[in-house]
């Protein structure tokens, strides 16, 4: 035995232990914090982080996950947490944890420092979720524009149109310029075309053939050959003329198609004027969207963003983790059982307990968070819930399933029984009233299967009493009408339904007060609104009428002029064709006469009839 060798091994082990003691903690903490922050798009921080290599134990005193939408708050934080990793999987570079107890879980906590995180640049194609949230955001923006509280029922059309720049007039000017250029081009084409010159040459040649002067059949045959050539030339000219007509018709039709669009341009101007005048379209969907669309769809987008993160990482691990690249002569691994077929990360059970910022005591389980569900055979299940002393309850249930060919996510959230005292049920100025009493319920149900979505978000306000007194008298006629309509309402529910695919997404927002509002408005201000719309329509039509007449007149006159020119050319070609044909017939006749006379002369001389 070599003593020096044993000492060397002892030294190596000692150095390894020391390095672990001094560097592993900070290295591992930084690595986990960085990667988690990238996923969260805002800082994720540990306090009191400790990793023990010999006990395979990971623990922290506090974990803060910053809310990316407001980096001065945490989406959630946890208290002291400790868990052990399984030994053997670690030797295969896999982290398997049997049980994690997340104590002191709190939602929406304040941060002492800003949790902003500088995201590394990731070049990613917009996927299903970004298309979805973008469409929803578009719908929210559209709802924001539907300011029913600013609507008017009458309008000064003259001053409105004075402010507007009617597009139809500009478009008609452009159309006329285009027509002028095109007509000028065709005028030149008809003027400079060689057809007429060729027609004149044929005419001259035909007229130069003096049939009576032909003295024998030989001359007649030669003249006939000339006529045949002239006939071919005339036919060629006819073909050229027809092609010219075809080109003209095609070009002319595409140019004049703009004339047919004038009605559409005028309609667009009318719609634009109606919009500027803030004349509303009293549709149930419009009212529902204006009242509740922004909030409901905003909440929906938040859930979708969380699901996007889940799917992104679920799918990313699934597709890349097990790609085994065999380098040259690295050999091939054989598997004799599935014993070591672990996913890279598997947190089998997280027991969670804590409290929301509204003092709801939460507890629940999150099971089977893994980097590859096909290896664990289990989807991620979340079941967290709880209530406070006033029976306000929160329940979150979710299944994130990446076991099959298509990723599936399901989320059910219910927040029920919270007080609506002094709250508003809608941010819209149509419902500016605080509530004196009432309980609220918010629920969301989102089902996603690959690119298909089926979801429903709803608000319920039960036992409500509006505080009309604090708002004073209605500020306008519409507010008064709406106040009357909802004065007896003690329950309001609103639902947003989003279904379909990102290519064809259906978004509907409805509430029980939509019909009340629509009926109230239709019975009172609808007639005035309709009259104002008709006024705008008549005025816009009148404003552009002169221009329209000018363009249409110009187009029809020019068309007639060009068609006449073409008809003249066509007629001259047809005339020459006719003349050539007549000349040919005359020559045939003359030829026969001459042949007959020659035959008669021969018979007379030699007595043989040919």
């Amino acid at each position: 035995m070599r003593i020096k060798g044993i000492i060397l091994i002892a030294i190596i082990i000692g150095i390894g232990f020391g390095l672990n003691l001094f560097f592993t903690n900070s290295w591992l903490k930084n690595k986990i914090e960085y990667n988690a922050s990238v996923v969260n798009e805002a800082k994720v921080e540990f306090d009191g982080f400790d990793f023990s290599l010999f006990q395979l134990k990971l623990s922290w005193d506090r974990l803060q996950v910053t809310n990316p939408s407001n980096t001065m708050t945490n989406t959630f934080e946890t208290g002291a947490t400790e868990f052990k990793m399984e030994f053997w999987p670690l030797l295969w570079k896999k982290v398997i944890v049997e049980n994690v107890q997340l104590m002191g879980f709190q939602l929406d906590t304040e941060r002492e420092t800003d949790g902003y995180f500088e995201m590394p640049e990731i070049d990613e194609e917009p996927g299903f979720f970004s298309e979805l949230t973008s469409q929803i955001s578009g719908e929210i923006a559209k709802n924001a524009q539907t300011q029913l509280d600013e609507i008017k029922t009458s309008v000064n059309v003259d001053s409105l149109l004075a402010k507007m720049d009617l597009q139809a007039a500009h478009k008609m000017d452009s159309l006329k310029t285009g027509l002028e250029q095109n007509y000028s081009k065709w005028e030149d084409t008809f003027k400079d075309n060689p057809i007429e010159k060729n027609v004149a040459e044929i005419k001259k040649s035909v007229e130069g053939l003096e049939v009576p002067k032909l003295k024998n059949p030989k001359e007649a045959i030669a003249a006939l050959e000339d006529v045949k050539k002239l006939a071919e030339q005339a036919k060629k000219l006819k073909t050229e003329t027809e092609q010219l007509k075809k080109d003209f018709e095609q070009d002319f039709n595409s140019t004049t198609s703009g004339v047919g669009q004038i009605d559409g341009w005028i309609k667009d101007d009318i719609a634009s004027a109606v919009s500027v005048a803030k004349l509303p379209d009293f549709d149930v969907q419009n009212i529902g969207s204006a009242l509740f669309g922004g909030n409901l769809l905003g909440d929906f987008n938040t859930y979708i963003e969380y699901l996007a993160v889940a799917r992104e990482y679920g799918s990313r691990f699934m597709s890349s983790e097990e790609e085994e690249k065999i380098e040259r002569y690295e050999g091939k691994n054989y598997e004799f059982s599935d014993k070591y077929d672990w996913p890279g990360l598997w947190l089998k059970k997280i027991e969670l307990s804590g409290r929301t910022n509204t003092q709801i005591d939460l507890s629940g389980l999150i099971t089977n968070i893994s980097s590859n569900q096909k290896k664990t055979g289990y989807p991620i299940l979340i079941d967290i819930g709880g209530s406070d002393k006033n029976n306000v309850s929160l329940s979150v249930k979710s299944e994130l399933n990446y076991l099959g060919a298509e990723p599936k996510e399901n989320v059910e959230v219910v927040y029920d029984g919270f007080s609506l005292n002094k709250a508003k049920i809608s941010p819209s100025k149509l419902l500016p009233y605080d509530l004196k009493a009432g309980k609220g319920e918010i629920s969301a149900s989102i089902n996603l299967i690959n690119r298909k979505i089926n979801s429903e978000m709803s608000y319920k306000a039960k036992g409500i009493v509006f505080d009309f007194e604090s708002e004073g008298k209605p500020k306008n006629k519409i507010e008064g009408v709406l106040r009357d309509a909802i004065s007896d309402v003690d329950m309001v529910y609103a639902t947003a339904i989003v279904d379909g695919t990102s290519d064809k997404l259906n978004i509907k927002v409805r509430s029980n007060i939509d019909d009340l509002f629509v009926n109230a408005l239709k019975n009172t201000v609808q007639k005035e609104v309709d009259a104002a719309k008709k006024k705008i329509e008549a005025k816009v039509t009148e404003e552009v009428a002169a221009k329209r007449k000018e363009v249409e007149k110009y187009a029809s006159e020019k068309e007639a002029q060009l068609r006449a020119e073409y008809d003249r050319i066509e007629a001259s070609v047809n005339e020459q064709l006719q003349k050539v044909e007549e000349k040919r017939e005359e020559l045939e006749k003359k030829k026969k006469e001459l042949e007959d006379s020659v035959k008669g002369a021969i018979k007379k001389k030699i007595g043989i009839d040919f």
Partner: protein
Amino acid sequence: MLLLKYLSKLLKELSSEAEPSQLAGGFILGMIIGLTPIMSFHNLIIVVLILVLKVNIGMALLSFTVFSGVAYLADPGFHAFGVWMLEHDGLQSLWTSIYDNEWWAMTRFYNTVVLGSFVSALLLCVPMFPLTIYLIKNYRTHIHARVQKTKLMQALKGSKIYSFYQTVNKVRG
């Protein structure tokens, strides 16, 4: 410097100082590391054996260097041999039972090149150990004196590096 030290020591011990079995031991242990994929669990054990047992470290280093080159050429053969063993019907129950044991699984015996090269190396040890002893003895009696007189050896001894090493060695004692 460490490599030079061990090579110099090897030259010295090749001449007369060390037991031929110690040199042969170093040779076959280095050969196993050289022939098999270096990041294998069994190589950790062999390194410990080299450090703990009284085998010649210089010979182990030399052997490792030489057989790493050999392994590069022989890897396809090791792979084929590994495939043959791992797919052999008669060995399936053995592989399955030891695969389920984590300690055995840590050796990565289920990799074709690891198994093929390791078994090949073990088989080679049987002739290589006595053959090395035989060659060392023959070297000492017939070749060593002639090697010392070669121009290469003279040049090496006369080099600045060698004299520097000798000086350092004397100072260190």
